[in-house]
C-alpha cells in the first residue's frame, strides 16, 4: 500500500445538475504510467482536473500520499506543488521569458535559490532541445516548443506525479511527435504519470495501464496490449473501432469501369 501515490475514492462530480463523473475509483502507484481514454465528453479531462483540485467535487475523495486534494482547502497550494499539470493550451505566461516562466514558481512558491532554479531550468531545457530559447518569449515559439516548455515548467517543481491533459490536441500533426517523445522519455525515467490523450499508438506505447471511461464511469481497466488487441467490453471495442476506416468505395469503382 505504501507505494500508492494518488488515490481516487468513489469520486462524483456534477456540473449544472449533470453528472460528469459517477463513482470513480482509481489507484496510481509510484512509477506507473496510467493512460485515460474515452470518447469526448466522457469526463476524462474533468477527472484529471479534479486530481489537481481545480474542480469542486460532489462527493468522494482524492488523496495524494494520504493527504486530501480538495479545491478551496487551505493547504491546496502546498499539495499542488507536488502535482505537475500540463494543459492542452500550454498557457505559458506571455509577459515572461521562457526561463522566467520555468523558474517563477520554484523561486516564488518554493522559495528556492534563483541561481539553482535557473541552472536546473537550463538543464531541463537542454533535455528537450530548447536550450537556445531560454531568453525568448513564448510568442516566438511554435506550439510544440511551447508545450515542451510547459512540461519543463511543471517538471522544475519536482512533482511526485504529472498530469497531462490532452497535451497534443491543439498541435499541428508534425509537432505532436516532439512532445510525445518528451513524455515517453519521462516514462522511461520512472516518473509517475496520468495521461489523457487521443493518440492511440502513443497510448499503447507509453501506458502501463489503460483506463477506459465512458459516461463518467470506468468501463474497462486493462493492460495496453490487451486493451488494444482484445478489449474486454463491447463499449471499448466500439470506441476503438471509431479509429479504423474502411477503404473508400470509389477506389473499387475505378477498377470496374
Amino acid at each position, binding site marked *: 500500500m505504501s507505494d500508492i501515490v494518488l488515490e481516487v475514492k468513489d469520486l462524483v462530480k456534477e456540473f449544472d445538475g449533470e453528472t460528469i463523473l459517477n463513482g470513480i475509483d482509481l489507484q496510481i502507484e509510484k512509477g506507473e504510467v496510467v493512460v485515460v481514454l474515452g470518447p469526448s465528453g466522457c469526463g476524462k479531462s474533468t477527472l484529471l482536473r479534479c486530481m489537481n483540485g481545480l474542480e469542486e467535487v460532489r462527493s468522494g475523495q482524492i488523496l495524494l500520499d494520504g493527504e486530501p486534494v480538495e479545491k478551496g482547502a487551505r493547504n491546496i497550494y502546498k499539495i499542488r506543488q507536488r502535482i505537475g499539470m500540463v*494543459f492542452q493550451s500550454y*498557457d505559458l505566461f506571455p*509577459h515572461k521569458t521562457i526561463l522566467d516562466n520555468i523558474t517563477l514558481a520554484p523561486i516564488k512558491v518554493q522559495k528556492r535559490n534563483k541561481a539553482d532554479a535557473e541552472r536546473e531550468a537550463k538543464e531541463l531545457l537542454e533535455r528537450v532541445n530548447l536550450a537556445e530559447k531560454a531568453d525568448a518569449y513564448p*510568442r516566438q515559439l511554435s506550439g510544440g516548443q511551447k508545450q515542451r516548455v510547459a512540461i519543463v515548467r511543471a517538471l522544475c*517543481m519536482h512533482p511526485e506525479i504529472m498530469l497531462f491533459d490532452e497535451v497534443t490536441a491543439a498541435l499541428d500533426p508534425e509537432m505532436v511527435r516532439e512532445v510525445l517523445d518528451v513524455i515517453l522519455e519521462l516514462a522511461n525515467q520512472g516518473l509517475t504519470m496520468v495521461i489523457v490523450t487521443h493518440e492511440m499508438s502513443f497510448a499503447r506505447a507509453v501506458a502501463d495501464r489503460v483506463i477506459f471511461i465512458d459516461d463518467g464511469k470506468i468501463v474497462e481497466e486493462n493492460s495496453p496490449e490487451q486493451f488494444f488487441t482484445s478489449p474486454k467490453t463491447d463499449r471499448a471495442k466500439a470506441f476503438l473501432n471509431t479509429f479504423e476506416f474502411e477503404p473508400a468505395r470509389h477506389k473499387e469503382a475505378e477498377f470496374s469501369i
Partner: protein
Amino acid sequence: MQDLGISILFKGTNFLRLLGGLGITLKISLISAALSVPLGIAFGMFMTIKNPVTRAISRIYLDFIRIMPQLVLLFIVFFGATRMFGWNLSNEFSAIFVFAMWGTAEMGDLVRSALISIPKHQYESAEALGMTKLQTYFQIIIPQTLRRLIPNTINLVTRMIKTTSLVVLIGIVEVMKVGQQIIDANRFEYPTAALWIYGVIFFLYFFTCWPISIVAKKLEAKWKN
C-alpha cells in the same frame, strides 16, 4: 495699434498667468487621475465578482456616471450638495471629487474588460504550479492586465485633462478662464487677442498631453508581447 497680436502674451504677466491657469487645470486633472487609477483598479476587480448584487451595484454606478454629462455632475455636487445638505464644498474639491468619480467608473470598466480578457487558463496554470490567489494576481494577472491597460488609461487621462475646462462653470479660474480674462481686458487694444490666446492655450494643452502619449507609446513598445 498695428503690431502683431502676439505681443499681448508679453504684456504684463499674461503668459505667467496663463501658465498659472494651466497649473490649476493640471492640479485638478492629475489629482483626479491619480485617485481614479487605484480606485478604478479596485472597482474593476469588484465588477468581475460573480454576484448579482455586486453586479447590479457596479452596473448602476457605471451607467449613472457615464450617462450624466460631467457638467451636470459638477453642478449636482457643487450646488446641489450645498442646497441639500448645507455642505460648503470648495469648487476645487467638488471638481476633483466629480472627476475622480468619473475616472473611477471609466477606469473600472477598462480594468474589468482587461481582467476578463485574460484567459481562464492563465489562472489555472498559475494555480497548478502551486501559486496562491495573491501570487497568481501579482505575478501573472496584474502584469498582463497593466500591459493591456496602458493605451486606454492614457487616453482616459488626456480626456480628463481636456474635460477639466468645464470647471470654469463652477467658478474655478483655470487656463481657459485666464485666457478669457486676458482677451476681455484687452478687447480694444488687441482686437485679434482671441486668436493668439486661444492658439497658445491649444499649444499648452498639446504639450501637456503629447509627452503623456509618448511615454505610453514607449511603454507599449517595451511591453509588446
